[in-house]
């Protein structure tokens, strides 16, 4: 009761001041937080929601195939159809051996779909979560994370199923496959960074989701997914190497298709890109975290 009296007198004392005057009086300190502390806090908040994260991922996977007769098999069949069509068309076009070319295409298509679905889905994740964000407190990071993790699980399933198919087609098992989890982790980090960055930006500029879609569609043909890089005239090759997506697809190609261990630079370039994009995503989150809710 004593406390409440203190309070009411406090209110009377400062009730007539404007917010700006209060700051001037140093009653109210603007919040400042280092980037590292921000990361720590974000991860701590998420660690309390581990179960929520897995439930969301499991449910969105379930919902995707609910009531369909083939269920999860669709996640295998979808890329398979694309692969068969592309292999037929492009091996006729480039006179390649369809078996080899089939493996080449699937190592391109699957990481590309993982990337595409994470980024297009992720870019709408915050806008779509308005209903949640205004009713319960959930860290903003949660929603892009759910999308990217869902796509990651999907990717791992379709990758392993198609791997069996590739073995039947005559792919050689190589020890380089052991490095696959690392490659997946790097692509995951890149996708999360991009999804986070675009999810926040889309809250501010809703047009961005359409722009992203158009750009990614164009990029599909700029990344050597459905054609071999050797059909590109050498003088234009640098253009392809400027494309950040190329390095992620390339990593999977080396590991699965060529069956080699990637060299240091094959690891470093995509990792560096992923770290930069993640950093961009988190910096933007730090800057806008307390404003996003007012823009939804």
């Amino acid at each position: 009761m004593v406390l409440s009296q203190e309070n009411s007198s406090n209110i009377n004392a400062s009730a007539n001041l404007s917010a700006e005057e209060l700051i001037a009086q140093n009653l109210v300190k603007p919040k400042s937080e280092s980037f590292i502390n921000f990361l720590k806090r974000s991860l701590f908040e998420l660690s309390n929601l581990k179960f929520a994260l897995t439930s969301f991922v499991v449910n969105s996977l379930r919902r995707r195939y609910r009531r369909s007769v083939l269920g999860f098999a669709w996640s295998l069949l979808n890329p398979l159809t694309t692969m068969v069509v592309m292999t037929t068309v492009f091996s006729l076009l480039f006179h390649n051996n369809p078996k080899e070319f089939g493996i080449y295409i699937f190592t391109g298509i699957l990481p590309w779909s993982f990337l595409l679905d994470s980024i297009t889905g992720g870019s709408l994740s915050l806008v779509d979560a308005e209903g949640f964000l205004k009713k319960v407190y959930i860290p903003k990071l949660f929603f892009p994370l759910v999308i990217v993790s869902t796509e990651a699980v999907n990717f791992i399933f379709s990758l392993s199923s198609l791997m069996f198919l590739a073995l039947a087609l005559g792919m050689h098992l190589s020890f380089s496959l052991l490095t696959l989890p690392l490659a997946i982790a790097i692509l995951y980090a890149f996708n999360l960074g991009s999804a986070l960055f675009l999810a926040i930006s889309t809250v501010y500029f809703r047009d961005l989701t359409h722009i992203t879609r158009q750009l990614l569609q164009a990029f599909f043909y700029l990344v050597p997914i459905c054609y071999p890089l050797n059909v590109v005239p050498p003088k234009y090759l640098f253009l392809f190497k400027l494309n950040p997506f190329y390095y992620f697809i390339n990593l999977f190609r080396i590991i699965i298709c060529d069956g080699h261990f990637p060299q240091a630079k094959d690891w470093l370039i995509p990792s560096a890109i992923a770290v930069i994009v993640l950093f961009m995503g988190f910096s933007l989150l730090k800057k806008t975290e307390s404003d996003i809710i007012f823009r939804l």
Partner: protein
Amino acid sequence: MISDKVYIEIENAWLKFRIYKNRSPALKEAILSRFKPKPDIAEITEFDALKNINLSLRGGDRVGLVGLNGAGKSTLLKMIVGIYPPKYGNVHVRGKLTPLIELGTGFDAELSGRENIFLNGALLGRSYKQMKSLEQEIIDFSELGEFIDLPIKYYSSGMHGRLAFSIGTIVDPEILIVDEIFATGDAHFVNKATNRMKALFTNSQIVMLVSHDTQKIVDLCNRVLVLHKGEVINDGNPKEMVDFYLKEIVA
């Protein structure tokens, strides 16, 4: 048992809502506005949803909030929960908090009642283990019986409400935040739910209750804040505050 480890401290908190005529400007306009000498001020109107809120609550406090629609009652609760961060000032909350602001948030119509128990509990920050141990208790309390394994889109609104209420109120929190919770369902369930709410009120350290039912506020609270246009204009004994509110503001 009153614990001094549970508290809510709000210091000089301001919350501003911005109303955008054009809530999210198209990219074109955003780029164009960079070249304009001054942005169109009329595009954005700001208003203070909460003005200079100071509040200090400790274990044992049962605080009721009264005020007209739009006075900022729910906004204040949402600021405490963390949904709306204050523009200026600080909000410190310590203790396990259960917000009963909107029941059934995150219900997925395609999923069964049982699956929704886990999903909803997860959103309230609970773990799988905890939900597993509460599962049966929730199902029993909601009296859904065999319907629990049916997708909730086939539920009647009463069944929906019973499930939501049962999940939200199954654990005794340290801090209870209630925004006009009315249990729905038949007379029997409403009766049971009222008892459950009473138990929650007794077992929580701090309770904050928003209600337009002033009698309920007087019965349940030991302190009442009167909110008007985003400001706490009076604070004190429930009976006096409710009289003040009814005479000075409602009338």
